[in-house]
Each structure stands twice: as structure tokens, then as C-alpha cells.
């Protein structure tokens, strides 16, 4: 019953070409949605599928769409392809292997919500993939899946690729909007949420690449089928990206709820020769760290929340026993200090101080009170910033400091 959904045809060499994609049944979901379904029916189906956001927050996509108000203003779709969360590379695979699956999701989502312009905001480094997307978009125009009066449904849609330029913060949805509008990526105060006041002050749906890529499968196979691929409250599969000290790093599409232990030791081939497991970051760098004793856990949103961590972008970074935890903390602290947009004082100053303290410890000049200072600074960041970057920094820093306190103390 459980099968691969998103990555099923990834082995096909030219899947990114529309002809090959169509031979695999591609664009049948679009035909079904636009010719046989009403927008309200699509919304109902996506809601029933319990498709939760794959970018990190896990918010149900159908519910998000339903927040878009009826209005005369234009509505927009922004696909978040910024993929900046350290450890995450799944969207790169989706977009390079199967860009039309993403486009189908974009078309159906836009039809459902009443959107006539969609932007794929892709991180600047993915230039080659941006070109591939543009190629796929032009193929879709040629075949009449984009443009005016798509499949004679009266529905119009244009899709554009917009490249970022190297700023982690632009993966945060309101920073992404600011960036798309041609500004610095400084997050906005919420509420209002983008669903009602988004791009150019208009209602805007923002979903991650993987989230949108699931839509065509839900339309073709139904919500009930989709839920069966995962968990009742958490439908579908998840593309886990495994990196770090494992034998076979890469992407693994598995049902939500697969055990973390199995992902590391069965699917990713276990630890590299001579290495033992020390810790795992289970959902991108922002997710609180798990120790080797904590990996017997189901990988779904709720199980990880119970374990005081998070599924986030499902990016699993595997850390071995030869790696000093101080080194890990140094990389984490440097990253958030570098990527803070600078707008909120607790994040800007807090992360820079934490970074300085950690660096000092690494230079052998640590003071007795340093670990408590780090925890105090982190607690002053958490919850006190406009956007989740503050929390995203505090969570791993606090969990590393608390769970590996003894090892860190030995460095003071």
C-alpha cells in the first residue's frame, strides 16, 4: 500500500521534459481538476488529505488556502523554493527531476484559489534549476497548460521564476514577499497574514515546493489514498534528506511516521566506517538536536514535537562520535549570527553575542559562566522577534548546550 509518490519516476532520465512527463500520466490531474472539478471541491479534497506544509512549519495547506478572502484584488501564489535551511536539498531534486509535477501543483492550486499569477521564488545559487524551470514553463505554455483560457476552462495563469540572491531569511514567508517586491528581506509583522495581505498588499498563498508537488497526486488518487500514504493527521510521504556521517547520504521518500533509526541505519546505510552515532538534527538546523539515545522516534510532526524537537524540513543531519559538539555549536552560532536580517534587536545582538562567546570557548578562553550566558541570551531571543528566525536560532543552541553540557563544560 505504501509507495513512492513524489519520487516515483525520478529514475527516468528526461522526466523534466513535458513529453516524457505526460507519458507517465503527467497533466492528467490538471485535466481532471480544470475540467471535472469545482474550486470548492478541490479545496475540500486538499483539506481532507491533511497535507501539511513541507517547508518547516507544517501548517495544513488546505486550511491556508481557505484563509484567502473573496476580493476584487488580484491574488498571488508564491512557491517557496528558497531552500536555505541547512541540511535541506529535497526541493532541488523535485525541481531538477520533475519540474512539471511542481507546475501541475501550481496550476491546480491557482485554479482552486482563483489566482492568475504565480511566482516561484528560488534561491539564487540554483541558477541551473531556475533555467530548467523556465524551460518547463515554456513547454507548458506551448501545450496550453499555462497562459490564457487553459484547457478551455476560462482560467488564465502565468508563472514566473524569481531568483533570490543569497539570504537565508528570504525563506521566511513574509521576508520572501519583501524580497519579491524588490526590497531587503526584512520579515513583516504578522498579522495580517499573507493569505489576506501579502504580495503588493494582495491576498497571497505561499507554499513550499514539496507541498505544492503533492497536489496533483491528491487530485488524481483522492484524499483518502493520500492519508493512507502517511498518517491520519499527517497525510502523504515525506522526502527525507539525509546528510552527515552516513554511508549513503541522499533523499529518501518514505511514509510520514517512519522511524528515524530506520532512516539512518536501514535506508541511509548506517554510519560511515568506524563512526558511531552521537547526535542527530532531525528537521534542518533549526530543529532541536536529538542524542543517540533519542533516535528511536517516529518522523512526523506530532511525534517530534512530543520529543521537544521538530520535523521542520525533514532534513536529517547525522553527527558522529568523533565530532566535538563544540564544533557543531560553533557552526550553528555562526550561521544564525550571519543570517539574522538585523531588524529585531534580540536576534541581531543576541546571536552575535552567542557567536562571540562560542568562538571564545573554541579558542580555549571560555569562562565558567559562559554556558549560562548562552542560555540566558537564547531565552531573550526566543519569542521576542518578528519572525521565526529568532526561535530557529535559540532552539538548536539551547538544546545543544543543555544536552551536551558536560562535554561543553570540559572545554571551559
Amino acid at each position, binding site marked *: 500500500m505504501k509507495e513512492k509518490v513524489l519520487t516515483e519516476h525520478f529514475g527516468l532520465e528526461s522526466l523534466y521534459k513535458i513529453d516524457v512527463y505526460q507519458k507517465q500520466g503527467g497533466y492528467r490531474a490538471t485535466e481532471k481538476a480544470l475540467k471535472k472539478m469545482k474550486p470548492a471541491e478541490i479545496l475540500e479534497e486538499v483539506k481532507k488529505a491533511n497535507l501539511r506544509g513541507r517547508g518547516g512549519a507544517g501548517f495544513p495547506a488546505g486550511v491556508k488556502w481557505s484563509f484567502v478572502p473573496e476580493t476584487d484584488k*488580484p491574488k498571488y501564489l508564491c512557491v517557496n523554493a528558497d*531552500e*536555505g*535551511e*541547512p*541540511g*535541506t*536539498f529535497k526541493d*532541488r531534486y523535485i525541481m531538477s527531476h520533475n519540474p512539471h509535477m511542481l507546475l501541475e501543483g501550481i496550476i491546480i492550486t491557482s485554479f482552486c484559489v482563483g489566482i492568475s*499569477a504565480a511566482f516561484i521564488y528560488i*534561491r*539564487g*545559487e*540554483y*541558477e*541551473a534549476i531556475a533555467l530548467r524551470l523556465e524551460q518547463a514553463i515554456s513547454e507548458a505554455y506551448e501545450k496550453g497548460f499555462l497562459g490564457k483560457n487553459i484547457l478551455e476552462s476560462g482560467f488564465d495563469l502565468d508563472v*514566473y521564476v*524569481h*531568483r*533570490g*540572491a*543569497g*539570504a*537565508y531569511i528570504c525563506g521566511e514567508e513574509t521576508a520572501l514577499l519583501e*524580497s*519579491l*517586491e*524588490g*526590497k*531587503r*528581506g526584512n520579515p513583516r509583522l504578522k498579522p495580517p497574514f499573507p493569505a489576506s495581505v501579502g504580495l*503588493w498588499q494582495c491576498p497571497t498563498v505561499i507554499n513550499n515546493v514539496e507541498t505544492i508537488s503533492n497536489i496533483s497526486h491528491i487530485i488524481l488518487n483522492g484524499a483518502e489514498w493520500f492519508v493512507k500514504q502517511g498518517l491520519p493527521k499527517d497525510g502523504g510521504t515525506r522526502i527525507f*534528506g*539525509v*546528510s*552527515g*556521517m552516513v554511508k549513503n*547520504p*541522499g*533523499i529518501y521518500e518514505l511514509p510520514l511516521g517512519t522511524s528515524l533509526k530506520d532512516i539512518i541505519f536501514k535506508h541511509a546505510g548506517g554510519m560511515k566506517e568506524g563512526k558511531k552515532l552521537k547526535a542527530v*538534527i532531525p528537521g534542518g*538546523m533549526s530543529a532541536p538536536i536529538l542524542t543517540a539515545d533519542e533516535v528511536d522516534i517516529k518522523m512526523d510532526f506530532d511525534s517530534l514535537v512530543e520529543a521537544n524537537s521538530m520535523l521542520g524540513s525533514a*532534513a536529517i*543531519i547525522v*553527527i*558522529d562520535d568523533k*565530532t566535538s559538539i563544540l*564544533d*557543531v555549536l560553533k*557552526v*550553528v552560532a555562526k*550561521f544564525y549570527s*550571519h*543570517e539574522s*536580517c538585523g531588524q529585531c534587536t534580540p536576534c541581531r545582538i543576541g546571536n552575535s553575542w552567542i557567536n562571540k562567546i562560542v568562538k571564545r570557548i573554541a579558542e580555549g578562553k571560555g569562562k565558567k559562566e559562559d554556558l549560562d550566558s548562552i542560555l540566558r541570551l537564547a531565552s531573550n531571543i526566543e519569542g521576542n522577534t518578528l519572525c521565526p528566525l529568532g526561535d530557529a536560532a535559540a532552539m538548536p543552541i539551547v538544546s545543544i548546550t543543555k544536552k551536551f553540557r558536560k562535554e561543553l563544560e570540559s572545554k571551559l
Partner: protein
Amino acid sequence: MSLEFSEKTKKKIEEIIARYPQKEAALLPVLHVTQQEFGFISAVQEKMVAQILGIKPIRVRELVTFYTMLSRESLGKYHIQVCTNLSCHLLGADNFVDYLVEKLGIEPGETTPDKKFTLSKVECLGACERAPCMMINFNYYGEMDPKKVDEILDGLK
């Protein structure tokens, strides 16, 4: 110094502007093509872009100083960006950077005197399964080690 965009770039910029209901949204994509044409974005290019989009040059500078991929100084012909984030760090990115520093004779952030190479340490490039990874201009290279990078760099003219 009077500079102008090439005809090709001018056309590209027009295409970009047409995508957006508001001209300002074209700023970041236009800066990408500007950097592609001139190699960097100094005050001169800032003014050119501002003029085309009908905005103040300071609005352009706001972006150039925010986004790390935009450069205010000229870079080497080949910009080597080595990821030093966690997955790459675990697999030896620091040693790899040290190797490049020694090989090229420059520190991260510097350009070789012959303007051939610029070396940068960067945050996650989104290719963690291929750690340690790097980019040279827009090409990705994974599972790097000294031997592999020797071959790659020696092949660049």
C-alpha cells in the same frame, strides 16, 4: 566614466520588468543581469539600475549590501564558494578550505593577483548530500577532496 548596458541586456531587462505589476519588483532580477554583465555592482551600476527602474540609487544599495550573492567589488574569473555549514563541516570542509588557501595563496574573501580566482566561505548551498561541496561560479561540485579540486582547478583556463 560612462557605461551602458549591452543591447542584449537592455532587452532582457525589459522582459524582466514586464513580469511584474510593479516595476520595483524587477530590482533583484535586474541586479542579477547587471552583475552578469559587469561582474560587480558599484555606485556606477547602482545609478544605471536606479535610472531604468525609476527609483533612487539608495534603494539599489539597500539590496546590494543585503544579499550576499551581489558583489560590490570585482571578483576573479572563477568564484570558488566553499560551504562550511554543518553537513559539509562534518565531512571536512575546514580542511578543504585550508587546502585551497594554501593552493591559491589567498585567504577566504580574497582574489588572486592574476584575477583568476576568488575564494569565499559560504553558508549552506543546498547540496548537503554531496558534502563537502563547493560552487565555482554557478556550477556545483560535490564530495570534494584535494585531488579532485586539483583536477577541477587545473582544467580551468
